[in-house]
């Protein structure tokens, strides 16, 4: 009955008024209780703690919040030899130590030049990125000019806010140069996808306050402490914003302690709930045990070689798992959240039932290489290969999005399928390479049939990745190059010398530089 639960959360003191009166009468009749009640209320009136602290903190908060101006330039994944235009944008950030500024990764992605300004400052100060974490949308910045930090203050990190508690979102939304504070109520805490990378899922706090462009990177505060970083808004509902909670911020800060950002680890399994009695009996699961079934173990994930399909996971690090995959202790947090909080090398322990026997399995957490191409990526040069005017690239999210914007989707279901199912199709070692466009030249006029197809092999050698394809083509001494694509029975035939000759002309005509 979720509707009733929600109502209780907002109005927790609603009781029968008659009973309440009688209860108060009883309290007042007791002399000691009566005296203490009087004392309590007197102290309350004498020391209005919260409003004063809050009023003081607003000035301190102003000293710690930063407006960020960014000039960025991205690479076009569809034409990886071309840089896009230069664009300007603004965001917010805040000081979390004497000279460190925390903001969102998306505020400073693809930045070529960045500057920052604090409240009441007239000067803009040049910024540089110290660490950027696209998988959790956070970045740590620094201004090298010490003047920037004069009369500054930094904010402390608080805890996860309570449901229905108020939070203040502070920042510089919609390009205004004056600081803005908007208040919202925490309406939900859950695991959700971070829009910046489009694939990573971590804890988020949903608030019913508008988070507008420019707000991003600003602090969400409760009692003067940071409870999150404002980072994205709902596209469906109005006035619904999301903040990155402190657990994720702390994970980021701990990760960079050694000076390098390593990123999140992945368990690399697929599971299904265990509501079905027959399903449980088939695997010999006792009625008393709750947990989830493993359906797939992904190659190169942490669990690869340690867990098996059919395993019944009952506890992670000693914390019991429910039939729905949530931790039993809270029943609102997915057991994967436990892995999310770990770092590479940390141990993951599972209690599980395998072949009707209870066993324990432990293995180190690690990153999964095939996740990289699933993520939206920023600030990188896309590697590509032009051979006979045919353009090859590693299948990745940026390319797929650019490809679909260009309307080049003809026959592309192979590409889309292999991308979306890459975590299950991939062996974690090889990467798909796609022939996604051609730079027209008489030599490739007959190649349209193979556009948007994924390369399988070249002259009988299985292609592992783009660099491998480059190596094969460069080192081949054979006159004819025979490229086999997935799903197509006929190979593409190219003449090596002709293609290489044409490339010189093509690169000149189409103004290709690099590669």
């Amino acid at each position, binding site marked *: 009955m979720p509707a009733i639960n929600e109502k209780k959360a907002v109005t927790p003191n609603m009781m029968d008024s008659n009973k309440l009166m009688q209860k108060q009468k009883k309290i007042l009749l007791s002399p000691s209780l009566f005296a203490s009640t009087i004392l309590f209320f007197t102290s309350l009136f004498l020391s209005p703690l919260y409003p004063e602290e809050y009023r003081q903190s607003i000035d301190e908060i102003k000293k710690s919040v930063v407006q960020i101006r960014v000039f960025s330039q991205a690479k076009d994944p569809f034409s990886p030899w071309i840089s896009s235009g230069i664009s300007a944008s603004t965001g917010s950030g805040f000081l979390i130590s004497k000279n460190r500024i925390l903001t969102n990764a998306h505020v400073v992605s693809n930045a070529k030049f960045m500057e920052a300004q604090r409240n009441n400052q007239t000067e803009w100060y040049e910024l540089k990125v110290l660490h950027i974490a696209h998988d959790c949308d956070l970045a740590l910045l620094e201004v090298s000019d010490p003047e920037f930090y004069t009369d500054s203050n930094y904010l402390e990190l608080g805890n996860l806010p309570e449901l229905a508690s108020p939070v203040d979102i502070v920042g510089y939304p919609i390009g205004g140069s004056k600081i803005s504070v908007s208040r919202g109520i925490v309406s939900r805490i859950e695991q959700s996808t971070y829009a910046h990378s489009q694939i990573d899922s971590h804890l988020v706090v949903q608030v019913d306050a508008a988070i507008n462009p420019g707000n991003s990177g600003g602090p969400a505060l409760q009692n003067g402490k940071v409870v999150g970083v404002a980072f994205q808004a709902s596209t469906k509902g109005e006035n619904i914003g999301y903040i990155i909670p402190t657990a994720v911020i702390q994970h980021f800060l701990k990760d960079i302690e050694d000076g390098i950002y390593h990123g999140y680890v992945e368990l690399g399994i697929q599971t299904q*709930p265990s509501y*079905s009695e027959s399903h449980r009996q088939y695997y010999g699961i006792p009625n008393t045990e709750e947990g989830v079934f493993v359906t797939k173990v992904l190659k190169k994930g942490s669990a690869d070689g340690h867990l098996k399909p059919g395993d019944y996971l009952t506890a992670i690090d000693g914390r019991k798992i429910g039939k729905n995959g949530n931790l039993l202790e809270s029943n609102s947090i997915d057991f994967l959240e436990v892995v999310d909080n770990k770092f590479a090398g940390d141990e993951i322990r599972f209690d599980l039932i395998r072949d009707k026997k209870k066993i324990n399995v432990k293995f180190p957490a690690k990153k999964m290489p095939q996740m990289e191409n699933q993520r939206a990526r920023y600030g990188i040069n896309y590697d590509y290969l032009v051979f006979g005017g045919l353009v090859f690239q590693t299948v990745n999210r940026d390319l797929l999005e650019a490809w679909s914007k260009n309307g080049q989707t003809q026959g592309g*279901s*192979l590409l*889309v399928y292999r991308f979306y199912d890459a975590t299950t199709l991939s062996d974690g070692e090889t990467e798909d390479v796609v022939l996604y466009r051609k730079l027209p030249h008489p*030599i490739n006029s007959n190649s349209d049939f193979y556009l948007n197809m994924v390369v399988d092999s070249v002259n009988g050698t299985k292609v592992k990745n783009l660099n491998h394809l480059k190596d094969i083509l460069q080192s081949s001494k054979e006159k*004819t190059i025979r490229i086999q694509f997935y799903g197509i029975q006929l190979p593409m*035939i190219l*003449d090596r010398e002709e293609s290489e000759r044409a490339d010189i002309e093509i690169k000149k005509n189409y103004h290709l530089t690099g590669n």
Partner: protein
Amino acid sequence: MLFLNQKLGFTFVFLLFLTGSLIGKSIPVGMTDPSILQVKVTVQYPHFIQPWRFKNPEIRQSTGIYIGENRILIPAQAVYFYTSIEIKKPEALKVYTAELERLDPDLGLAILKFNDPNASKDLKAVIFPNEVFLPGTGLVMESKDQRNLEEKKIRMIRLDMDAYSSGYVELPFIEIQSEEKLDGVGELIVDATARIPQGILYQFKENNSGRVIPAFSIKHFIEGKSFSFKGFRFKPLIDSATRNYYGLRKDDLGVLVAEIYPGSSADGVLQLEDVLLEVSNFKIDPKGYFDHPKFGKLNVSYLFHNTNDIDSSFGKKIKLKVFRNKKPVSLELDLKPLPDSAIRIPYGNSRFQTPKYLMLAGIIFQELSEQFLTEHGNQWRNRVSKELLYLNDFYRIKRNQNEGRVVFLSQVLPLSGNKAYHTAHQMILKSVNGTQVQSLEQLQTLVKESTSTYIHFVMSDGFEMIFKKEEIQTLNLEAKQSFQIQKDSNF
């Protein structure tokens, strides 16, 4: 005025006599011939996503051509899943009923038969000849509402080959153009001068171009003959690198065999990567065309699929010359119709096939068809499972005889007994109790005849569903009652 009309009439009859003698049996269709009929068909399409249901009935209007012996020719599209057929003669109020006699999905035509044997009284049969006059002008004869026959002009441009909307076999069509708006629902096309039937209009687009089924194909169909299929697909061979690789020295010959359908005419005769040089002694150019003495450049498929008596391949052995492993080889190919067993994922509309389903424990299993996917609306390519879409694009035809149909879990009817699996949909079924599943029939048998306590389903992504055998019947019973489904399966 009267005199003038009489004189014109005489000239007309004389011309008819002359052209009639030239082309044998062809009979001109007069302006007022009562052979063009209005056909109203009520259809009720099956629901591919919920295959136990049918959609609301719809009415389809088309033109019917009387072809004698109480029979009417009509586009097949109009009669798929019909529930009632009403036929009206021009200028008459009485409505006749008819039943479907025969249908060919590749040609897209059907023959109806009047229920009332007297219905064809006063009707004059249209005879389709073996000849078409190309290029030339034609007249579209249509009968609309209560009005008389109307005629509109068209230009018949050329003959070409293509698969029709629900067809697998590339068949000849006449490309036409017209300044006037046409429906393309089976109107009769006659030659403008001699008024000899030329074909039936089956498609007309907004760019003022359309397609006509040529008279000789219609004649072939009316005579009760089937349409053969060459059983392979080819790829043009126009770049020098590929030509050199296959050892071709001349620049002007040959296409590459790219796909061979198992059990078809080409199976066991042609091989992948054969270069097809000649068919029936016609040289094939690198784009797949040959020079036809009358129709000009024509796609090589014509030499396998044409139904024109003069150069029909029907019942004949086709002589082929191919280049295999860099050596010339002479072959002979017997033409057969496309075997249904070669089709893995039915293409186009359903060709009168009601979608099959099998319910097990309140879970619906189906066989993948393109119609199932297209039922998801205009944006169907974005909406459906990416794996199903990929299979539909790349694996419509089996690559070997051992490949089966794609059996998938389309949806779970939510019951408390299957609640562990409520989120499952559009998942490919890999195996049941360890046996790979290749058809719904096989799945039904596997479950029915299983002696084990449990039925263990495994999907292609590893998702599992396990039921006790007796649970399956109980849950089916509950699903049928709860969701008003009549049967566990419909095959």
